[in-house]
């Protein structure tokens, strides 16, 4: 069953917490991975791969650079999840 927006955000929050040690409550739709959450380009790759596994989506490298905020990533997963 496809995940809801709320489930995706809370899933991303757990992933970002696990990889970058950011408190889950800080991970909100409007937050920028790089500027607000201190997720650098390499950690972003780890976040993306973990999100792929968790939500059953494929996020090619070319698309990763467009995922600036948690909201961008959430929308992408909502649209592409199987």
């Amino acid at each position: 069953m496809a995940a809801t927006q709320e489930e995706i955000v809370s899933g991303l929050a757990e992933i970002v917490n696990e990889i970058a040690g950011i408190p889950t409550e800080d991970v909100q739709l409007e937050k920028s991975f790089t500027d607000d959450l201190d997720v650098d380009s390499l950690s972003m790759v780890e976040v993306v791969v973990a999100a792929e596994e968790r939500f059953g989506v494929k996020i090619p490298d070319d698309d990763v650079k467009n995922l600036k905020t948690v909201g961008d990533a959430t929308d992408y997963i909502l649209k592409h999840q199987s």
Partner: protein
Amino acid sequence: MTAKIKPAQGSPYARILGVGGYRPTRVVPNEEILKHIDSSDEWIRSRSGIATRHWANDEETVAEMTLEAAGKAVADAGITADQVGAVIISTVSHFKQTPAIATEIADRMGARKAAAFDINAGCAGFGYGLTLAKGLVVEGSADYVLVVGAERLSDLTDLTDRSTAFLFGDGAGAVIVGPSDEPGIGPSIWGSEGDKRDVISQTIPWDGFRVGDVAQLPLGEDGSVKFPALRQEGQTVFRWAVFEMAKVAQQALDAAGITPEDLDVFIPHQANMRIIDSMVKTLKLPEHVTVARDVETTGNTSAASIPLAMERLLATGKARSGDTALVIGFGAGLVYAATVVTLP
């Protein structure tokens, strides 16, 4: 008529008998790199784990560094240079392509008449050479084989590229592979993914310097033509290295019948500390496994990185002769090679 051909008489198995390394005398701290790029020591360390690297001076050519490392490996193996039957050098930074630098090495080290050739398998060059050496020893075409990874990547570094200027280092690492009664080198899991050949590459091919093409070459700030350099797509390389190469490493363990519990040492190509840390996590290596983290003070030396790290782990007592080690190289091509070895 088809006459019966007598095959060569090889050894039942092969192993690494000795290792040697050479690091250039000049240590280059991040502060020196920062003269050329807008970055910081903290940024470089957090993205790569690199604090210092060695850069060669004019005398420390690929040949001289190779000879130093080779001499140490021969001595460590307890053989003499004239017993070496084949010399395999992996390098992408020896700029006189013909003849192969391996012939100069064979001659000057005293391995006269040895088969001698160069290979280019980027950062997987050591594993490729090791695979060839194992085959030669077991098949019987050479008793002892010298395998060297030798690079002067400072010559192929664009000091103004803030994503790679801090990454590369110079050095040479060598091993002697020879006969053994027990398997000392496991099955090689090696291959290529040529559809990703543009992910890591030299910026300009050498024939781009022909008169007539020069107008299309990129210029530096001072207006001079930029020398070729290595460039890469960092995120793509990171993803491939961490997640795809962890699978290859696992296959090498499985093929050798080794569990992570059996393993003493993990020596991945020293590309970047973040890749090493993430691979260790993805592979779920147990706490007791010693992990090579030579990149911190050596930088990324491509084909030289695994034997250099191996030599340092043994020299500092962090690994011991007879330990079981997983080695994996990966890089431009993209190419990769992983195998389990018994340390010399």
